[in-house]
């Protein structure tokens, strides 16, 4: 029969959802395996010392079991982190400071406010840079410099200064968050607002369009893909900003506070659980922006 290389039907028995997700599943499994290996190797000395101090005989399997079940491990095993996550999310009432969801909300609210301030500021800055030639030369270097200063050095200053004028809690954190996240939006939007090609601009000129019309009917729609790409980056950065903003204040609440107390008391499992929650928040923010972006671009006629 045919000896051609058309072997496509062979693969057809596999459900599409497996084929689509296979790469992700493989990567996740590999990471889990590596995590367990790391937990065993890193915690082994700790557990061995403990056995030796108590002068009990131990087998290899007891040693391994010990590394995956330590109270204050160097690297907690995945299942320990999951258990801690479950306990701290569902073990306490939502408004209790022992509930991780409460801390997550505190950080998320600062993140969202900071993201909105930062994104709006970033867009505004880009719009003025694009329209006023001198601003590009005078402002852009400062914009870039602003990101060369380590945020950990600036954060306490901002908190103290704002505290002195009576601002506490959410706003100072949001401002640190906004300070970090406006940057990618500005850089990307300057590029996006300048992205229409010369012919498209010449057309506007032949119709004697005003600057406002050129902006709303040409520059702004052209920059939409740039906007969403930069918002994705900005959203994760604004989360980092909010967490960093919680560190120098000795804040009582928030993921940053949770990380800080965790490290004071050697609660590694608690730290890891807080990190996982931060990662979930960041991933969700990116996913939400991605969906909104796709929807918008589809309405604007993007192919596919």
């Amino acid at each position: 029969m045919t000896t051609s290389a058309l072997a496509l039907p062979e693969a057809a028995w596999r459900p599409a959802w497996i084929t689509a997700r296979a790469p992700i599943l493989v990567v996740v499994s590999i990471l889990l395996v590596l995590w367990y290996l790391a937990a065993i190797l890193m915690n082994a000395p700790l557990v061995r010392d403990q056995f030796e101090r108590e002068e009990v005989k131990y087998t290899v399997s007891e040693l391994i079991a010990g590394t995956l079940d330590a109270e204050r491990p160097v690297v907690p095993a995945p299942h320990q982190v999951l258990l801690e996550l479950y306990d701290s999310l569902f073990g306490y009432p939502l408004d209790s400071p022992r509930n991780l969801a409460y801390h997550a909300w505190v950080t998320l609210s600062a993140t969202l406010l900071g993201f909105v301030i930062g994104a709006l500021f970033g867009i505004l800055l880009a719009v003025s840079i694009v329209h006023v030639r001198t601003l590009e030369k005078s402002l852009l270097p400062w914009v870039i410099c602003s990101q060369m200063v380590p945020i950990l050095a600036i954060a306490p200053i901002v908190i103290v200064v704002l505290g002195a004028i009576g601002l506490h809690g959410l706003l100072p954190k949001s401002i640190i968050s906004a300070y970090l996240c406006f940057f990618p939006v500005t850089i990307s939007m300057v590029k996006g607002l300048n992205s229409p090609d010369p012919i498209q601009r010449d057309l506007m000129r032949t119709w004697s369009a005003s600057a406002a019309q050129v902006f709303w009917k040409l520059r702004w729609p052209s920059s939409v893909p740039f906007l969403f790409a930069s918002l994705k980056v900005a959203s994760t950065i604004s989360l980092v900003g909010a967490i960093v903003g919680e560190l120098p204040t000795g804040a009582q609440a928030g993921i940053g506070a949770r990380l800080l107390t965790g490290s004071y008391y050697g609660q590694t499992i608690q730290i890891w659980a807080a990190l996982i929650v931060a990662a979930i928040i960041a991933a969700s923010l990116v996913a939400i922006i991605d969906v909104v972006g796709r929807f918008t671009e589809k309405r604007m006629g993007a192919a596919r």
Partner: protein
Amino acid sequence: MAFGSSPNVSVRPVEPLRQAEKAKERPAAAGALAVDARGVSLTFQTSDGEVQALANVNLEVGAGDFVSFIGPSGCGKTTLLRVIADLEHPTSGTILVNGVSPGEARLQRHYGYIFQAPALYPWRTIERNVMLPLEIMGFDANERRARMEKYLKLVNLSGFERKFPWQLSGGMQQRASIARALSFDPALLLMDEPFGALDEIVRDHLNEQLLRLWEETRKTVVFVTHSIPEAVFLSTKIVVMSPRPGRIIDVIACDFPRDRTLEIRETPEFIKVAQRVRSGLRSGHSYDE
């Protein structure tokens, strides 16, 4: 007017029109002229020094004419078109478009410009692309829609209103851009190699459609091309240009009837005009290395 149905094509003899001779006998008042350029020069400052894109260009385009600029790359034909459109400013000389300066002509919406690429805005559907200049010029919504429907029908694109540009072929996109340029009913159409990126079959078809459109709308057309058959087929007047510096070598009247069809390209008269264009190009050293 039905095209493709006239078996006998009458062709008038070609009359040589030397630019210098024309300039002398030109009347002082130029109200009826669509374009009136006198001694127009344009020099670009580049990093390699000065480039003279146009040198002492004199040109008259009568209302209702179909004038083609032909010449090799760098002969200034696109620059001349952009000067007419107020997209470039001449360094010396005067130019009037419909009796006013190019800037005023632009503000008064005297011309529609069609570029080499359709340059439709990809986030707008075809109908919203055609209505875009109307939005900018402040036409009300009903008028915008009525005009959009009228001009899409004129370029045979009815039924594609809701499509996005990428869903149309290159030729259809360029037709949509022609509808867009016509939408605000300018007296003058400036076309910069509009069919240069299309294959020859589509191009022939669009050339015929453009002629029919020109006949129906009675607009003045200034058309830039580097295809000799295209120029001879479309034009009432062919302006032969030459590079370094960009200048006009010859102006050839080309008086085939308005309802000409593609078949005239095989007639001896057509070939004669084409030869004249070619010899003009040669005398301007357009075929030199």
